[in-house]
């Protein structure tokens, strides 16, 4: 069964001298599969990911989910979640209200929200920390909250943009295994961007390499 298909996707940054960050990239991610995009910084992998999720609009090409064109679907209707490099937690909300944000947007009632939030906090190993302000968490805990938050509304696809690069080396190794297990346990289709080959190997079942805006065959 096909999950995500990307066809000839290009991303260009405007300005006086436009930069072609992604040059007609095509790839596929099967449902339930985790694919890693590996490449040095500045190779365009984050731009590609942002275009897939819909945060930036591509200069050309198409993004399809199960054959349906979603290239022009607005971000919030696309059903693709994203874990940002530095978490991007909402500083004015507690852990539980961060994790519950997507459920609030989906219009779930309070009881159903609380249940799902508890479930996810358990999944990422942060049971009982729901009422903490996110500003009091360690780096590793923050990324766990970010992961739980993006999984909560059950996204069709989860995009992870360097989810572990803000952490120290030892923690990174441990958390990479955790992320893989969590993704497997929740059966999520995922596309993860990283510059660390070891991390890519651990987290993904398939690794694609990228250089200068293009996939390396």
């Amino acid at each position, binding site marked *: 069964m096909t999950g995500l298909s990307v066809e000839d996707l290009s991303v260009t940054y405007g300005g006086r001298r436009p930069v072609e960050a992604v040059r007609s990239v095509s790839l596929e991610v099967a449902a339930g599969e985790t694919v890693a995009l590996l490449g040095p910084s500045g190779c365009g992998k984050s731009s590609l990911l942002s275009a897939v999720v*819909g*945060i930036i609009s591509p200069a050309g090409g198409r993004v399809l989910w199960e054959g349906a064109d979603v290239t022009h679907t607005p971000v919030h209707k696309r059903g693709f979640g994203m874990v940002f490099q530095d978490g991007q937690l909402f*500083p*004015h909300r507690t852990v539980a209200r961060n994790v519950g944000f997507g459920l609030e947007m*989906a219009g779930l009632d309070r009881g159903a929200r609380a249940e799902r939030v508890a479930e996810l906090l358990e999944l990422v190993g942060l049971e009982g920390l729901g009422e903490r302000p996110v500003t009091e968490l360690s780096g590793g805990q923050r990324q766990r909250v970010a992961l739980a938050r*993006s999984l909560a*509304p059950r996204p069709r696809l989860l995009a992870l943009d360097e989810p572990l690069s803000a952490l120290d080396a030892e923690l990174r190794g441990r958390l990479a295994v955790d992320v893989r297990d969590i993704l497997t346990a929740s059966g999520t289709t995922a596309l993860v961007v990283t510059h660390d080959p070891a991390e890519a190997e651990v987290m993904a079942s398939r690794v694609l390499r990228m250089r200068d805006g293009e996939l390396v065959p």
Partner: protein
Amino acid sequence: MPVGRRLTRHLTWWGLAAVPLVFLGVFFVWPLLTVLIRGLWDGGFDWAGTWAVVVDSRTADALVTTALLASLGTAGSLALGIPGAYVLYRLRWRGQATVRGIAAVPFVLPTIVVATAFTALLGRSGPLAFLGWDQSVWAIALAMVFYNTAVVMRIVGGTWASLDPRTADAARTLGANRRQAWWHVTVPALMPAVASAASVVFLFCATSFGVVLVMGGTRINTIETEIWLQVNQYLDMRAAAVLSVIQLAFVVGILAVSAWARRRRERVLGTRTVDGTRPATVRDLRVMVPVLTVLGLLMAAPLFSLVERSLRIPGGHGIDHYVALFTDPPRSVLPVSVWQATMNSLVTAVIAAGIATALGLIVAALNAARGRRAATLDALVMMPLGVSSVVVGLGMLLTLNRSVVGFDLRGSWWLVAFAQAVVALPLVVRTLIPQARAIDPRMRSAASTLGARPWRVWASVDWPLLRRPFGLALGFAFAISLGEFGATSFLARPDRPTLPTAIFRLLGRPGLENMGMAFAAAVLLAFLTAGIMMTSERMRTTVGGDL
């Protein structure tokens, strides 16, 4: 370190600190305490007398008007300043720096100029006279908005420009549409900055004396203008002192709210700052065009009508009013020519700026090394910022209108210069201290290890790096002193008016010529102040940036 050497160092520190401390003690703390005591004491502890003023219906009216005007002014400044912050700080476009510079102009204009400009616009025979807003609450609130929109844009814009746009993106990926992301993510992140801008603007509006005094006529009185009336019309110093106590309590309340908002802002923002600006696109024109149009109209209309009416003469336009600035008007109007008043202003402002920057330099030198006593000194010299200049003026009138240790200050114009120095000092200190602290202490150590004595270290390391900020502070202090109206209106003698008090006198006299001269004099003051500000802005630099 030997005991003797340590003692010398302490003595030197306190010897230097004594200069600003004594100055502030005599010209600020003593007058302030006198006002406080006079407010509660009249030959004995006099609650009844105090209470009589507090419950007087005039006092209640003034309090209500002060709160109403400040609320209207704040609401208007926020309504215009928040979209303005978005357009001028969050978005990026060509020519933006210039527009930002122009948008900051109202804030550096003296209050008397702003009040005169709005009188020119809305008053009798002004282009918008048909609105009937002359001497109305709306006109005053509009002048306050003119003044303070720049403040809102600066504070909110600074926060907005460093908000990470990806936090809103994160909300979008979680299913929030544009409006939801705005409400749930951007608004909460901006809120502390908005609250802190609101409290600062509220404070400015609640203490904007000149605008209310000129534009309010006899009908609209705030606490500050009421203080002025009690002194200058009813000669009731006691009532003025009680009102000053009320004003002080009011200001302390606002400052407490402001400090609370600032603490919250720091907590939410944390330490992370990113560049959150983005280039403007064609779609942004839908926001940019209306915002910039309204901002432009608000700024241009009063200033344009001020200039136009300064040139308006019977049967056409000409420079007659400007020529009249050099001639002696009838004694009943003004005892000296406006030109002479301008000279008075310049001399007073030079002295005031000299005192303020000299004191500021001492405070900055003592604050170069952080420490508790340095921080206390810093806090102390900032105090005049929290006290309305009207209260400073009244206090000096009550205390120093006599001979002090052999110096006869009675009615002396030196008092005006001292008051202006007190008012300008906080800004001077805020300009110099961050720069003095930015100097790497290791540079001083390096100089010391090369054999430089402490004052040589200062002369060869600190001074060369502080020279430009010093010029900036000197310019600021000069411009503030030149336009100072609150304290000056209490202290300037009628026969030795400054340019702002001369403008005030001219506005209050009947006759088209007097009006025209007031407008011409306001244009002159605006150009003087703006010119000084622009010249000194060129001194702005980051210390060590060119190393």
